[in-house]
């Protein structure tokens, strides 16, 4: 008996050791180093000096950072509901068993996720083109005014469209997998009680999906606030609409690699991380509180 008790105790740490080592080396160590860097200021003339929390104080008051955070928050509010609703509809439709060619459709919706976001953005950037893009050409043929996908007022929507196209399949798979785990006897019981397909979806499937939906929502918070690739690439096409501080992440990148203000960029990144943690935590709290006891 004692032997059996001690063995798992010594084996446990060994099992998690590979993870912990990599976690320390690749995650905590760089994070610690960035935190350390954020307390200094390096100048091209005059070198490095310790400045304490000055970088954070500057960042809190930085209008460019604030605009970037507000912009990604707006983006989140526009894009995430649309994407999750679509993902939910697709998942329910696939799970209903009423679709022909369900496998093909499932794959078709998922494939964009396999396309690297850089490639996806380049492709959409071409499609959006105001002169020679296919939409512009089509409206030209039909003597309609060309759509202005890449202007100030449309840009967030155009970005949201790209991101939705990329990630709707990914979220659908998560929701679909959750649906597959619902025990069949629940459906049988519902059917016996006289529930139709819609009623089952509403009263059985949706409640069962709550944890999966919370998960996808959490991923979306993080993804939205770290929006980078898409605006960074579209900036090359429309530099007057997307500037180097369009999103908070883009701003941190510009500070580090264009302005050579690595220390300030580290502080900005930490603040952005803090914002994401707070918002994610707030979401989790609300989701848990609403869960029926």
């Amino acid at each position: 008996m004692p032997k059996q008790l001690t063995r798992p105790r010594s084996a446990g740490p060994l099992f998690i050791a590979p993870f912990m080592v990599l976690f320390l080396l690749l995650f905590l160590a760089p994070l610690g180093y960035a935190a350390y860097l954020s307390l200094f200021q390096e100048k091209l003339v005059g070198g490095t000096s310790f400045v304490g929390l000055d970088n954070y104080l500057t960042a809190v008051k930085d209008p460019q950072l604030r605009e970037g955070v507000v912009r990604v928050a707006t983006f989140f509010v526009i894009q995430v509901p649309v994407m999750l609703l679509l993902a939910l509809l697709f998942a329910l439709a696939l799970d209903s068993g009423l679709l022909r060619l369900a496998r093909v459709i499932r794959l078709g919706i998922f494939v964009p996720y396999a396309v690297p976001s850089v490639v996806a953005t380049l492709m959409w950037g071409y499609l959006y083109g105001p002169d020679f893009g296919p939409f512009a050409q089509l409206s030209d043929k039909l003597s309609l005014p060309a759509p202005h996908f890449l202007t100030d007022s449309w840009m967030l929507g155009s970005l949201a469209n790209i991101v939705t196209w990329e990630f709707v399949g990914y979220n659908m798979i998560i929701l679909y997998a959750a649906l597959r785990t619902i025990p069949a006897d629940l459906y049988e019981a519902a059917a016996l009680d006289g529930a139709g397909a819609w009623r089952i979806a509403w009263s059985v499937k949706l409640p069962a999906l709550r944890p999966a939906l919370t998960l996808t929502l959490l991923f979306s918070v993080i993804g939205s606030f770290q929006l980078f690739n898409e605006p960074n690439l579209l900036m090359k096409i429309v530099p007057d609409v997307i500037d180097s501080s369009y999103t908070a992440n883009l701003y941190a990148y510009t500070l580090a690699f264009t302005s050579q203000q690595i220390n300030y960029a580290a502080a900005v990144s930490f603040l952005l991380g803090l914002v994401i943690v707070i918002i994610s935590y707030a979401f989790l709290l609300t989701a848990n509180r609403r869960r029926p006891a």
Partner: protein
Amino acid sequence: MPEYPVSSPALSRRLLLTAAGAASLGAALTACGGGGSDGGSTSSEPVGQADIDKAMTTPTELTFWTWVPEIAQEIALFEKKYPAIKVKAVNAGQGTPEYTKLRTALKAGSGAPDLVQIEFQAIPTFTITDSLLDLRPYGASALKSQFVDWTWSQVSGSDGEVWAIPQDTGPMGMLYRQDIFDKHGVEVPKTWDEFAEAARKLHQADPDVYLTNLAANQVAAWHGLLWQAGAKPYVTSGKSDITVSVDDAVSKKLGAFWGGLAQEGVIGVEPDFTDSWYTALNKGKYATWIVGAWGPAFLSGSAKDTSGKWRAAPMPQWDAAKPSAGNWGGSTTAVIRSTKNPIAAALFAQFLNSDAESAKMFATKQFFFPATKALLADASYIGATPAFYGGQKVNEVFAGISAQVDPSFQWPPFLDQVATDWTETVGHSLARKTDTVAALGSWQSRITTFAKSQGFTVKAAP
């Protein structure tokens, strides 16, 4: 001045090379320390022939970051002459992406190459961080007379250092569509006034056609135009003083001119090197492209549909009696100061760009516009008659332009920042047809703020 190690059998070759590197590093640092406008120019002691011979016969591998396609053929010439030295070419991106990686490697203290390809405009950005090796101790000064004067002054430091060896250049001219000009009865503009008239006339005659496109993301073109107009936007003295004058009278003249044309809607302002821009060039949306001398070869590769329709001419002038030119692009080969093989690296940089065969290969295989006087006088080079330009001697046109480039133009020590700031101020004003002259003021103040935050002493335009 540090003593150079004497050849001694007790010293291993590796140690000797390291010591020689450290010695020259010390010399270069001394030169920097004594730097400043007061001209405390410390001449660097040349490396002895014995050390050079030894280094060039010691098996060595050099890493060279470059985006030149098929550079293996030029490297082969060097390796044939110095069989002990192997050069590994790595494409780390073109321009800014390479500089970003380089800066990261330099900061990390490892992973930096021995040599890099670097544009003229980026040299001060890397000398301010003491990242480049002064090539004087390795005989670079002797090459001065082989290179076009303005290219040599571009690679020279304020105390006479030689920071890099010129590879190719981009004196700016105007490529134009002869067929479009003929169709609408437009003459090739000789002055900027004629250019503005032609822009209005052409766009009125055909609303789908614009005389040119001034890309709202292309600070390099703007710098070239400033250069031609005789502006001195950035003047540095010493290591910490900079005069920024990107909104002085000359700049405002440019701002009013181009901003005016953009507001009238008679020129294009779309970003260059995008899908849309390439299509526009192929479809004849723009009747001219004002570009560096690398433009002709580039265009014939990317606008194949328009072969035979293009011609080349000098840029329009502000004063036709005193023609002048600016430069856009072109690059150099520089040695990174942290190299363990400074002798081999320096000799490679020099050979690559000054050896007659290697330099000619760049001009004929990679279609680079040369930086050497010999090639610009070479009848077989300037006499070439490419069919894309209707058999015109395009190289001869640009060789003439190269002679008019002002040698005193300087670059800021933080080019990336200046470029981003330009796009977000002057570029925005062009794209959105707002006041470009006012935008110059914003550009000036953004550069000034940045420079001050980096510890520079900033002087306003006199």
